[in-house]
């Protein structure tokens, strides 16, 4: 198990845009540097990238949730 944390505070998004598919679904393989979500901070979008490889276990917070820096956004198994 590994946690992916938010680098900045803001609003977390599971998708690149509302029309697109989620970045990752449960069971997807995740490589180092893969983008798993976006955090909107002060109208800028920051990509959240995996720092370890693994298998995606799921998002830990809802799409469009307000998050703090360090909050767990997703987990790998």
């Amino acid at each position, binding site marked *: 198990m590994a946690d992916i944390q938010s680098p*900045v*505070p*803001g*609003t977390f998004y599971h998708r690149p845009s509302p029309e697109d598919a989620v970045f990752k679904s449960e069971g997807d393989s995740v490589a180092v540097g893969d983008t798993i979500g976006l955090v909107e*901070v*002060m*109208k*800028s979008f920051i990509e959240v990238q995996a720092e370890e490889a693994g298998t995606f276990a799921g998002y830990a917070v809802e799409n*469009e949730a*307000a998050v703090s820096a360090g909050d767990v956004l997703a987990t790998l198994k």
Partner: protein
Amino acid sequence: MSIQRLFIANRGEIAVRIVRAAKSLGIHTIQAHSEADADMLAVRMADEAVCIGPPQAAKSYLDIEAVVKAARDAGADAVHPGYGFLAESPAFARAVTEAGMIFVGPSADTIQSMGDKVSARQAAGAAGVPVVPGSDGRVDDMDVAARLASDIGFPVMIKASAGGGGRGIRIAETAEDLSKLAPQARQEAQAAFGDGGIYIEKVIRQPRHIEVQILGDGTRAVHCFERECSLQRRRQKVWEEAPAFDLPEATRQAMCKSAVDLAEAVGYRGAGTVEYLYDQQADAYYFIEMNTRIQVEHPVTEMITGLDLVALMIRVAGGEPLPLVQDDIHLTGHAIEVRLNAEDPHKKFMPFPGKVGALDLPESDGVRVDHFLYEGYQIPPFYDSLIGKLIVHGDTREQAIDKMQSALDGIKIDGLKTTIPLHKALARSDDVRAGRIHTQWLEPWLDAGNLNDQTGGAS
């Protein structure tokens, strides 16, 4: 019917500014806030505060129904929208009015017609305000395009009617270029947008951005001179001045008069801004758009005229006729405003929503800071990065820049990364001092590494 209870449907520094202006008029203030803004400065200053929803702007400051309901439930008789958020939403202005309250701004119809590029351009043309010469809509006949281009004068820009965001723009320097590039542009627009429509427009090289502040009461309008906002990054203004520098007096008068003409032609009520592109070489100006709200950079106009624009827009909204005529408004000295953003200019302007540490804001004769900071305040990440504005006034532009430089040296905002280093570098720049700037100047200057160059950069 004057306003008794004002609901402020905004946040940050402009909310503080509106609370101050309303209090100076003896008006009871009701401050709206999201769940993330319960401890912001305007909430502490206002007579009352009301939570209007979750942190995300779409669920609070942009939710028309929630805002109107909160204002009505609080017994407000007027709503001030500030800038941004719902300030230029005709639907919001209409909803406020239909709920029996005053919208502090022009009518929903005026907002709508000025918010639409085509109808705004038509209104400007009808009021005799020069617009950027162009085809006024799509051209399908290439002979017509060639004739138009030679009337307008080269270079011309070819744009896709269906496009946006600068995609597919081509510049034709000559008639020969046009005959080659126009069909290409049509083909590309057809492939990209399913519509091969193009239009052409005069190219204005290295334009300056000059805008005129107006005030209207629905019948009569006055101008409060112009502002120069040519220093922009990603189309965001970073440093603004009043008046514009080296502007021929006849041009200033014509620009200001055409802004008043437009405001009166549309029966404008409130504070508004008519924006122009200025072609310095040709000494020609062209209407771009009208902003139907108070603007971020309004303090520079207040510094050179001594007027309180926010108080005036509230009084006019309450039904008072404009309390001044044009001859009452005088231009004194030169003012400069810089935008203080919580961003790290050395890291590609990455946002920095930190906690405010020790604060030292130099406010004295001719130095003003509009802000919403206090020590220990945690800046929320959900909104834009503007945390304040530093404004100075001097007798001349030279003196104002000197004053800005020392104010920037004296200001201290601990705990955050801010754009202060950018403004220090700008104040040192020879190009800025000499006025060799235009709207496309700042980004290449940054790309060339001038932010890190303590000498102010080559020019």
